[in-house]
């Protein structure tokens, strides 16, 4: 079995977000650090669990992004992926989900993957589009927010449970090959092992220049980025920690929320 896991590098969640001077996108040089999208870690882990259950399984990890994003491929190899593919973009800014999905689909088209995994969404753009789009590009069945998956004994189907509202689950049987977007909490992502990381550092990644990949026409465009508006008064308490605690106690008592 061959599995393709699609991963993304995103900024550290604690990193401050500053809008660039033309309000076109986030100022990338203000970002203090990068990491693998947390939600993609569950997708990598789920693939590695399958590899452990089905010896001989090969995992390819693919990412699209500037040079620095090779780091997340190395991490995926550190977790247990076999090969890495890096589609290298020049730009550091916003990437359109359909462009990403088209490029991944174009790469995967003749590679006979049994399963293609993505995270449920990226933490930065939060669109959750790439998985179902890859499926549509390749005419494959798909399921989003998968919280459990089980291969059928004949390896022709995969049984999945997807998370729906209120904690209920929609259960499906998908014909393989299929695309699954993996929900957080399905497993506990492991840390990369030292021996795998050493291998990752030596191993050559397959690199493709984005310019040599497909260039679909953009169907939507980010025209402006703004800071969010407050929906409540949002009073910031001032002073020392103790002064803030005293003020909070007074506020809660005034409203009879605390005796």
């Amino acid at each position: 079995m061959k599995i393709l896991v699609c991963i993304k590098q995103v900024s550290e969640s604690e990193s401050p977000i500053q809008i660039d001077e033309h309000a076109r996108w986030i100022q990338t040089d203000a970002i203090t650090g990068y990491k693998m999208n947390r939600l993609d870690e569950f997708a990598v882990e789920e693939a590695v669990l399958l590899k452990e259950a089905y010896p001989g399984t090969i995992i390819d990890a693919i990412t699209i992004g500037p040079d620095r994003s090779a780091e997340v491929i190395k991490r995926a190899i550190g977790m247990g992926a076999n090969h890495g593919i890096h589609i290298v973009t020049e730009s550091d800014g916003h990437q359109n989900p359909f462009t990403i999905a088209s490029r991944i689909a174009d790469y995967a088209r003749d590679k006979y993957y049994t399963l293609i995994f993505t995270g449920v969404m990226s933490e930065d753009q939060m669109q959750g589009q790439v998985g179902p789009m890859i499926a549509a590009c390749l005419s494959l069945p798909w399921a989003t927010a998968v919280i459990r998956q089980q291969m059928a004994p004949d390896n022709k189907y995969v049984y999945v449970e997807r998370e729906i509202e209120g904690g209920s689950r929609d259960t499906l049987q998908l014909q393989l090959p299929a695309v699954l977007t993996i929900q957080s909490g399905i497993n506990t992502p492991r840390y990369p092992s030292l021996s795998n990381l050493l291998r990752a550092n030596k191993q050559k990644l397959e690199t493709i220049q984005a310019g040599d990949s497909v260039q679909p026409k953009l169907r939507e465009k980010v025209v402006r980025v703004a800071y969010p508006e407050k929906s409540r008064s949002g009073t910031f308490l001032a002073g020392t920690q103790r002064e803030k605690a005293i003020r909070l106690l007074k506020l809660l008592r005034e409203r009879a929320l605390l005796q």
Partner: protein
Amino acid sequence: MKQTIVVIVEHASGQIRPVTHELVSCAKRLQQNKASVIRAVILDADPAALAREMADTWGLEVTAVRIPGLTSYNGEIYKSVLADLMREFEAAYVCTAHSSQGMDFAPALSVELNAACITGVEDILEVENRTCFARSIFGAKAVAHVRSQSDISILTIQPGMFRPQKPDKPVGGSVTIRSLKCESVKTRSMGIKQAEADMTGITEADVIVSVGQGLGDKENVALIYQLAALFTKSAVAGSRIICDLGWLEYRCQVGVSGATVSPQLYIACGISGSVQHVMGMRSSGYIVAINSDPTAAIFQVADICIVENLITFIPAFIEVYEKAQSEGDQNG
């Protein structure tokens, strides 16, 4: 030419989901911008009654597609049936819910229709006389304004953002029923498994002390319980990430994929304030947020914002409280 705006009726277990009415009100906002017509579409094995309800409530033209065997949502069927219908209607906008259903089929449908796909839409704006859609990015620390560059745009609308204003005396509603044989070849629905978790603990509390990633370490959960213990009828809850880490059980999770709560007081400790979390708690009576990051999105929805590390602030608050209590006792 008149534009067509299509609302996809979201329903489950024989009932129209409340978000569907928000989709209609979103469609009406789009309609104000240009002369256009709104149509609703419902897919189901037996859609007649729900279609009638939509037509009567809103005075809309409703197309009900009867598909034998479609007893619950199926992505493959939705994609193929809706692709044909949207072409036939020459839809300019397709409004679906940003829900487990809409998020599942909208991106795939957009590929089929060469359409723009804009997910998690929170508002509609005009920028330089052109329609733009606002959506949160970077954990709701920023908002992107997105403009479609296609003839057709598929939108998934964030629930809770467009207040439905149903007409007093709706007129002109009509239902057209079509029957269609459509079987999903590759995606077989096997039914819904109902939630096992009992959320009543947090949905019935008057005070919720909720914790997020800022907690740092599992052992610090004790602090959250200590804070909650100061209040009567209180409960401890958490964001998804805390439940994923196994620091709290999933029945304590607040947000889109967990419980929706509206206690008198919600204290958000170390919670970043993602859209998914905020949707589950923003109707709380009074919201206090404690976070060491002054730019955390949770401060946008809070009444009281405290920029402090919760690990030191909570003990300081408990100390102040206990001191005040003992002084109160002496005076009394």
